């Protein structure tokens, strides 16, 4: 059954926003963060209005309700990603999740001379933690290049790089190119060569059903805010085997079992890594977001997004001076369409698009090694999600064409 986009849009109050210049908002910055449906906003408000309390800490009614809601959300989120609740560690987002793997697992389980494989496509969040660890422990980092014509990973280079590697860290989907990597093949090749694998699914999770157990990855990092959830929360999905090997990354608060003046003991499992007061409202909001998303088939969401992204990419190619980085026509591509105009500087172009009400992203997208590989300092990026419409992209192309004619 086709998605009822108008009904979906009605769930997002912000989409009816009129901007200060009188233009109707057209939100195409979904790869940066998605908008939130009313049910997510309501659930978070309901928590603050009715049962705001610290979870796991007290015996009173509010604390019990907060704890129950926090743990119910963990169950819903874990189920959505095909994982068990015990294998889900709440984090502030995908960035903290990757840092948790670096500082909580790799620091204790990798040694000098071990190899970590990254790709040129990675977000800085999946590069810098490894560079820091490399400096500290003498770990070798290998980067798998992209093919500058197809914008896909060079899998021959990956095959060479993964030999004798200890850990492979790869993005599920590029936040710049929209390219979905062959992660099943990457996981298999990594496992075959004895490497553990971390998937950065910050961009993949809003577009595709992530099946943690089915994928058989060791670690998966996810952010809530790109998939209808609130900012400030995400998770690390971690296999039971790797979880056993992890040490605390941060300490204090609810992760402790017993503290004496002589030392401390810690909780087991995910609780060991959830320090301080949990992000209770955010977890509840994310739980509501996955419940909201569960009414749809992720495949249908992807097909809808792909259809408008492919159309947009195709129309952009007809505008003189526009170059697209990525392949929006590829059925596996997400809704991110990166582009540049040969004469209009990217910041200027974003500004002029904003004048028409179109919110697009500009910059290096926290992927400077990829920018270097592409030979550009930045790109403009329009990224679509479930609530974007064909009418919106038609209006966008019309405005973009007008801007390009007038300002180049």
């Amino acid at each position, binding site marked *: 059954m086709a998605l009822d986009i108008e009904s979906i849009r009605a769930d997002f109050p912000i989409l009816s926003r009129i901007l*200060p*210049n009188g233009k109707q908002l057209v939100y195409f910055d979904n790869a940066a963060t998605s908008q939130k449906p009313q049910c997510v906003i309501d659930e978070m408000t309901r928590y603050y209005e009715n049962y705001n309390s610290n979870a796991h800490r007290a015996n009173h009614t509010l604390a019990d309700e907060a704890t129950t809601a926090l743990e119910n959300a963990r169950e819903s989120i874990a189920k959505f990603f095909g994982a068990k609740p015990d294998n889900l560690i709440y984090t502030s987002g995908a960035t903290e999740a990757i840092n948790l793997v670096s500082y909580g697992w790799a620091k204790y389980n990798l040694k000098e001379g071990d190899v970590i494989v990254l790709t040129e496509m990675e977000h800085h969040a999946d590069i810098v933690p490894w560079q820091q660890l490399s400096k500290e422990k003498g770990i070798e980092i290998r980067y798998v290049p992209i093919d500058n014509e197809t914008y896909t990973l060079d899998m021959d280079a990956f095959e060479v790089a993964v030999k004798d590697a200890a850990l492979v860290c790869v993005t599920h989907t590029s936040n710049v190119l929209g390219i979905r990597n062959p992660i099943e093949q990457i996981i298999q090749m990594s496992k075959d060569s004895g490497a553990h694998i971390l998937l950065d699914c910050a961009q993949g999770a809003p577009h595709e059903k992530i099946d943690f157990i089915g994928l058989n990855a060791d670690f998966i990092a996810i952010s809530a805010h790109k998939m209808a959830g609130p900012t400030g929360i995400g998770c690390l999905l971690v296999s039971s085997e790797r979880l056993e090997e992890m040490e605390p990354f941060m300490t204090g608060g609810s992760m402790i079992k017993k503290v004496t003046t002589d030392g401390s003991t810690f909780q087991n499992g995910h609780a060991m890594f959830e320090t301080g007061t949990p992000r209770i409202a955010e977890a509840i909001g994310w739980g509501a977001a996955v419940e909201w998303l569960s009414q749809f088939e992720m495949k249908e969401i992807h097909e809808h997004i792909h259809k408008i992204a492919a159309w947009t990419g195709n129309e952009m190619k007809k505008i003189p001076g526009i170059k697209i980085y990525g392949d929006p026509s590829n059925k596996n591509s997400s809704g991110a369409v990166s582009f540049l105009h040969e004469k*209009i*500087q*990217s*910041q*200027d172009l974003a*500004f*002029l698009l*904003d*004048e028409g009400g179109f919110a697009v992203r*500009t*910059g290096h997208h926290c992927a400077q090694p990829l920018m270097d590989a592409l030979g550009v300092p*930045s790109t403009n990026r329009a990224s679509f999600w479930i609530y974007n419409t064909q009418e919106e992209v038609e209006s966008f192309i019309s405005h973009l064409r*007008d*801007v390009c004619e*007038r*300002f180049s």
Partner: protein
Amino acid sequence: MEGASWPTHLTPIIEEFKDCFDSMERYELLFEYAKKHPSPLPIDEWNEKNQVLGCQSRAHVKSSLDENGLFLLRAGADAQIVQGLMAITAITVNGMLPIEVAKLTPKYVEEMGLKSSLTPSRANGFLNMFNRVISEAEVLSER
């Protein structure tokens, strides 16, 4: 200065922008001003010392005194919107006493109908460049 906000010789430019039909026409006019910067800073003079921090686009500012001891602003940016605003700023401040430049506010940009260019979170960074000009004027006025 008119209401201590901008010098009177800037008023015709402000009026020119006010006469524009809509914001897109204002930006077209701004792009035209970017091409006629009275004292541009050539790319080969762009360096870390004169780079304006906080701009995602490349932007450089170099203030000095001319042979008469009056303010001379040289600036360059790869974004045409920033370059256009800096061109208008240069038209405004060149030939003024540094102490007068130091009192300038960016209100004229708002008056031109380009208020959104002044939002601090805008990555194109005209406000950062303007603040750099003011702080350099303050230093030059102490000489």
